[in-house]
């Protein structure tokens, strides 16, 4: 009801039909949908954001660093001074968990990105070009998948030695190769689309078809693969560190904290094991929930979700 609008301002705005409600920008609209349809997924997303935030700003949150030894305060229970207690060397568990988050973030994102690149490359080559190349790649993948993951990991670490980048490469390779199957399947079905034939018939090159017509089609499975792999990589890294094959101490890997310190003092100072355990559980739970929600929302066949379907069925039968 603003009557004093200047005439100049009115003429400046181009004559556009008034929209009833301005639609939200895409990412925001997606977030709104996430909260509405998958509240648990939204919680997961929040946990992921928290993990990222902690990882990035670890130095600000725990400025004393993860390795500040304070022998007088060793094995202190959680208190106002040491929120999560201290370990046998008097190091602040809170600081170690926070810096452990950074380590987890680095390993998780680097290894997952690597694995997705490998999956996409192998899957697209194999699925799109087919024939002998497909045969060759798939038999290699078969061979690789014959071995239990843990055996492969142990052998690889034994060869390369423990360390952050080694873990990234090994996990990236491991998850990348097994994930290529999923990408290949998506490519195989995308390749059947008439519009791929149509693009061929108008003279588009293979690279062009892959880039413009196949890749957008496998984007949704790739995103889902990414989120589910993130959690798996974090778990795998912790598992390796727990076995002493991962990132060597004193780096504050959650898995390492669980095993080295946690196990030795489990009865005297249970927080040594409980705190990193909880961190691990919460993070993996969060990522998994977020990943599930993403999968359901990006997969057109699942659009609307089972919840809505159930509601519709219930309405139909009058329950």
């Amino acid at each position, binding site marked *: 009801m603003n009557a004093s609008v200047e005439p100049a301002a009115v003429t400046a705005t181009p004559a556009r039909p008034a929209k009833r409600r301005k639609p939200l920008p895409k990412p925001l609209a997606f977030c709104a949908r996430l909260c509405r349809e998958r509240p648990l997924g939204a919680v997961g997303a929040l946990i992921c954001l928290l993990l990222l935030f902690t990882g990035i700003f670890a130095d600000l949150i725990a400025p004393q660093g993860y390795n500040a030894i304070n022998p007088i305060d060793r094995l202190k229970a959680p208190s106002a001074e040491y929120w999560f207690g201290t370990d046998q060397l008097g190091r602040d568990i809170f600081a170690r968990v926070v810096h452990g988050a950074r380590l987890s973030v680095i390993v998780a994102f680097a290894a997952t990105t690597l694995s997705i690149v490998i999956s996409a490359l192998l899957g697209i080559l194999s699925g799109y070009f087919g024939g002998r190349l497909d045969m060759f790649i798939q038999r290699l993948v078969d061979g690789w998948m014959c071995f239990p993951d843990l055996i492969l990991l142990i052998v690889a670490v034994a060869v390369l030695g423990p360390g952050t980048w080694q873990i990234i490469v090994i996990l990236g390779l491991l998850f990348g190769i097994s994930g290529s199957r999923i990408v290949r399947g998506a490519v195989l079905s995308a390749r059947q689309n008439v519009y791929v034939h149509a693009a*061929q018939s108008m003279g588009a090159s293979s690279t062009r078809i892959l880039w413009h017509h196949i890749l957008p089609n496998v984007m949704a499975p790739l995103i889902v693969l990414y989120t589910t792999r993130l959690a798996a990589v974090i778990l795998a890294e912790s598992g390796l560190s727990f076995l002493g094959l991962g990132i060597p101490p004193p780096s504050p890997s959650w898995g390492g904290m669980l095993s080295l310190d946690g196990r030795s003092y489990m009865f005297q100072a249970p927080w040594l094991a409980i705190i990193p355990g909880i961190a691990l559980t919460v993070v993996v739970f969060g990522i998994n929930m977020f990943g599930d929600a993403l999968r359901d929302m990006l997969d057109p066949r699942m659009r609307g979700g089972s919840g809505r379907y159930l509601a519709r069925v219930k309405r139909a039968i009058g329950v």
Partner: protein
Amino acid sequence: MNMKADVTRRTLLDVQDLHTVFEKDGNEVHAVNQVSFDVKEGEILAIVGESGSGKSITAMSLLRLIPSPPGRIVGGRVLFNDQDLLDLDDEQIRRLRGRDIAMIFQEPMTSLNPSLRIGRQLAEPLRVHGSVPKEKVRERCLELLRQVRLGDPEKRLDAYPHELSGGMRQRVMIAMGLACLPKLLIADEPTTALDVTVQAQILELLRDLVRANNSSMMLITHDLGVVARYADRINVMYAGRIVERGTAEEIFHHPKHPYTLGLMESMPRLDQAPGSRLTPIPGQPPDLSDPPPGCPFHPRCRFAEARCRSERPPLEQITDNHWKACWVDTDAKR
């Protein structure tokens, strides 16, 4: 206006003994068997046949779009402007696709990528072949959409395929096919998925645009009614072979091959007595991995003689503008 008897025109496409096989469970399926035909400049040639007669495979063989394996072109020549397309390397044939010979597929609902805007897809042939400078692509797209009489072209360019109806999508596909002004347009059942009123519009549009561009068109269809109105000449295909050929008028009014006769009788007509029944062709098309000996049509043919079961009839000229592959004088027997 009578282009039908015009034999003096230059031959644009000359297909000789084209032979395409598919490998299936260790058997060879002869989907296209020794097919020869030609397309003249400015002509609309129809290829008619029921599902599985090899008409689409013929079209795809021309552009070497047969999925391989399992498909393989094992023989013949495809002379386009006196150049054998089967001799070209992959890069050369790719450059030719869409620029000299374009193809329109039968399913407008799935021929467009659902995740890309119309404008970008329409621009694809132009970009691929670089036939229009980059800054003029949009302009050309608008022009094309106007040509195919799609209303509100500015808005359509930014639309996604799901926002368009089937007929509109087929118009977009036609615009894409015509984008680079191809000399030959292959339309593979362009109206099958559309309802009847839209069918007529689309076919008229196709004919007008092909005439306007001075291109030729190969119209692949199973609908003889479509053919009669829009084609200059007709090839009737059965079981991977051409069984009858002639001008549209000739085939429509004086069909000679029993298969063509059968197609005519199985088609509803306005001049039929009300309540009269259509006569279907009995039986099924033959299994092309194990075709019957002799004439492939003889198991379903009401005129079949002893000779039909043992010897395959060649495609022979019977009048100036009429060829048929049949031993029987169907006119006498009818």
